[in-house]
């Protein structure tokens, strides 16, 4: 990851130039939470360097060629009484020159391209956190097989550790894209009997703590636009405690069983019992795993694992803040909140059920 001072300087200059231009165009400062131009990981920095190399060459070519064009337009415009210009048909020397020069420039683009291909498309050199990413219409499932965590839409990773994603889809093609951290890869459907498993890899090491947004980037149906995602980079300690919390009742840990002590504490809690009753009678269980319910250990359900909904910052695949009122609205009218989504309730919920469910879901951090 060593970068020569010259390259760093150049990259910053480019960025400054581009951003400067942008500010000029935009006329006001904007926040870009999903930009590719402010890379925040090893791999996106590699890509950014490469991209900036191509941008610089493009700028050079652009200026020279458009310059020549515009010059010719002004210099050679006809004036009244012009004689017929000299009827040149070609000039082998210049034709050879302007075939060779672009070829040389392309070589300057091609060499770093191939180098970067080699660096970025090989399997993760040093994977430290393994995550399985599964695309669903229109939400993301994340499984941490070694840590025993199953969550949705918000990928939580520790800073400075190489995260290795293995990605596939449960239905149609999607593309997992986190611009600042990892660039993107398509995810392909895999069914139980698929033979050549097209599991796409992607790896990155985040270099600073923070929230990064991203989005599905392959048309996947009606709510493709709202198949957002978020990568939350935590310090190592925060990540550890997050994992410990998420492991409670995770489908990957003893089939979702929770410790007897927790279980009895919940049984004594009316928010929990009322909510769970609504969860069962409202039909949620058909599609969602939820800690403490009989299907807590189930994988491959239609909807996200709701066991720790309270701990997530958004609902509906990075569509809405996870606030009580938004959650209530979501349960009142999921189709109105996200038209066409696969969350179709068997029957409308009563307001009482909704508030019970909201409290119940939010209590499980």
């Amino acid at each position, binding site marked *: 990851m060593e970068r020569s001072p010259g390259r760093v300087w150049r990259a910053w200059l480019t960025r400054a130039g581009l951003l400067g231009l942008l500010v000029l165009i935009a006329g006001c400062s904007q*926040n*870009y939470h*999903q*930009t*590719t*131009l402010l890379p925040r990981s090893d791999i996106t920095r*590699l*890509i950014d360097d*490469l*991209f900036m190399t*191509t*941008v610089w060459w*493009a700028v050079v070519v*652009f200026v020279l*060629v*458009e310059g020549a*064009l515009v010059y*010719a*337009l002004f210099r*050679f*415009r006809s004036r009244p009484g012009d004689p017929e*210009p000299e009827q*040149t*048909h070609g*000039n082998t020397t*210049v*034709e050879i020159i*302007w*075939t060779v020069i*672009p070829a040389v420039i*392309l070589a300057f*683009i*091609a060499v770093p*391209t*191939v180098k*970067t*291909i080699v660096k*970025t*498309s090989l399997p993760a050199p040093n994977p430290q956190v393994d995550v399985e990413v599964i695309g669903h219409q229109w939400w993301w499932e994340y499984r941490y097989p070694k840590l025993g965590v199953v969550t949705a839409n918000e990928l939580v990773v520790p800073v400075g550790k190489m995260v290795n994603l293995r990605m596939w889809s449960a*239905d149609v*093609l999607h*593309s997992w894209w986190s611009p600042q951290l990892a*660039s*993107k890869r*398509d995810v392909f*459907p895999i*069914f139980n*009997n698929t*033979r050549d498993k*097209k599991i796409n890899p992607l790896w990155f090491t985040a270099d600073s703590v923070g929230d990064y947004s*991203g989005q*599905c*980037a*392959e*048309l996947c*149906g009606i709510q493709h*636009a709202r198949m*957002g995602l978020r990568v939350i980079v935590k310090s190592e300690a925060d990540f550890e405690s997050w994992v410990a919390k998420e492991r409670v009742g995770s489908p990957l840990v003893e089939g979702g069983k929770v410790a007897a002590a927790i279980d009895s504490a919940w049984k004594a809690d009316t928010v929990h019992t009322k909510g769970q009753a609504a969860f069962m009678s409202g039909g949620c269980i058909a599609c969602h795993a939820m800690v403490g319910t009989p299907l807590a250990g189930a994988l491959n359900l239609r909807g996200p694992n709701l066991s720790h909904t309270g701990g997530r910052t958004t609902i509906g695949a990075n569509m809405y803040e996870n606030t009580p009122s938004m959650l209530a609205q979501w349960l009142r009218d999921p189709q109105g909140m996200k038209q*066409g989504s696969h969350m*179709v309730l068997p029957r409308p919920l009563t307001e009482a059920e909704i508030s019970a469910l909201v409290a119940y879901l939010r209590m499980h951090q």
Partner: protein
Amino acid sequence: MATSVLEHKAPAIPHHYPKTGFWSWITTVDHKRIGILYGATAFIFFLIGGIEAVIMRLQLIGPNGKLVDPDTFNALFTMHGTTMIFLGVMPLSAFFFNFFIPLQIGARDVVFPRLNAFSYWVFLLGAIFINVSFLVGAPPDGGWFGYANLTSARMIPSTAAAPAPGLNIDFWVIGLQILGIASIAAALNFFVTIINLRAPGMTLLRMPMFVWMSFIVQILLLLAFPVITVALVFLMMDRNFGTSFFMPDGGGDPVMWQHLFWIFGHPEVYILILPAFGIASEVLPVFSRKPLFGYTAMVFSGVFIAFVGFGVWSHHMFATGMGPFADTFFSLATMVIAIPTGVKIFNWIGTLWGGSLRFTTAMLFAVGMVALFIVGGLSGVMHASPPADLQQTDTYFIVAHFHYVLFGGSIFGLAAGAYYWWPKIFGRLLDEKLGKAHFWLTFIGMNLTFFPMHYLGLHGMPRRVYTYPEGLGFEFLNQVETVGAFVIVLAFLLFIVNIIKTWMGPANAPADPWHGATLEWSIPSPPQEFNFPNLPRVGSSVPQWDAWRAAGGKLPEPVRVSGDDIHMPNPSYWPLMAAIGLTILMSSLMLIRQWDYWYAITLFGTAWLFFSVYRWAFEPTGH
């Protein structure tokens, strides 16, 4: 003289067919009239595609737009892309192929005039067919490249909101299949015409550059369309007969669709741009008063682009993860194409260099095309770098790229052709004042609309999103783009005004208003039915300039002759009948999931088609 067996005793039918009126257009086999039909139809569809774009732009003017539903938006960009490409740019190119290939090579018609009529009618019916989907409420919504398995019926989930797979994608599949037949028929016709009907003396390396580029386009059409035909057949089978060509649950592979589509799709983009390149290569020399610089290099760069263009398709698929070797191969192959394209750009500048430039509207559009295509080409080279493309693919950065090459390239080139050739086609010169306003507004509007897309893409805006949330910094640039789109609308409204104004004005165009270099300028405007009373003899790639020099700098205005002794092929309605039969046959495939006896209609359409083809084959053509 030997004649074909198929018209054994051709009666000497006198020319008593009506030359005007509805029926004369329905039965016409005149390449010029068919060209005009193509042009008018395609322009209407271009406007429809433009209106679809404008609705999208309105939806995206601000965050969380509510103008259209999400599924309507999906239909809008699918139909916008499909319409612009298959019903806009391709048939607009066919407009110029039809009208000007025979004129530029000194021929009286194309080799197979009735086949020509057939391709137009099939195109028209296919275009209507695919747009009927809006009327029945099932417009295609799987994107213009219809990626499986989203487009495979089994993957369209049946929820309470959307019970059974609709006909949306079926319209697209069958519609493209119909349009493909039209394209192949037309391509075969022009291909043979260019090979075989060149005037005496017109060797291959004396053909006008527009004819050369058109020639290459026909080859690309002939070789690329069969591939998408097969892909569409597979998709249709997956949708209707439970096969698994692109379905993983049966062992199939959705990536195979992508391969087949882009093996067609990449040559297709050169099908879209080369006619514009050809037009620019006609217009720039004429208004520089200098022959095209580097003619031979222009020819061979075109051939090279087309040939290599068959080996780069996977640059649309870097995100599928093909592995380092394939990535490297397709990346390098793609970059190589920049070299011959650069040769073209430089030769155009070389043509301008040292010339005496007249900035007519046609010239402005041609120069604009060169200037804007460079921008699109350079972003293309950025996509060609696979790791970088992983950040760009499926974002507005790509949308910026292809609008620069398609709008800045193809549409500008075609507009240059329209202004350049209008007097030849209609005998009237378009208004230059309005024309220049059209150009400048289009140029400004186009950059306002599409330049900010580069930034949006790099800042993380994916394409094909019906809306975007606030707070990601997308608002302002999207607003600018929408404003830009309206500037383009204004520009094209001016163009329409110009057309109407010119239409109502007098037919005053001389045979050669621009001092053109090629054969079409040696005959009256508009040309007579038989084009050339006598076959011209050609001694160079600028025959009209030769004639002009030989005449000492002034050529007399060509006179109209009676042409009674020149036999032109008879009009015929069998091409239209055959096209109808074909459309019935293809449409019946829409019913497979709806009606058990769908094949009755297939058989009916096939019978109709065969009957028409036989009548066509045995029809006397009057000579």
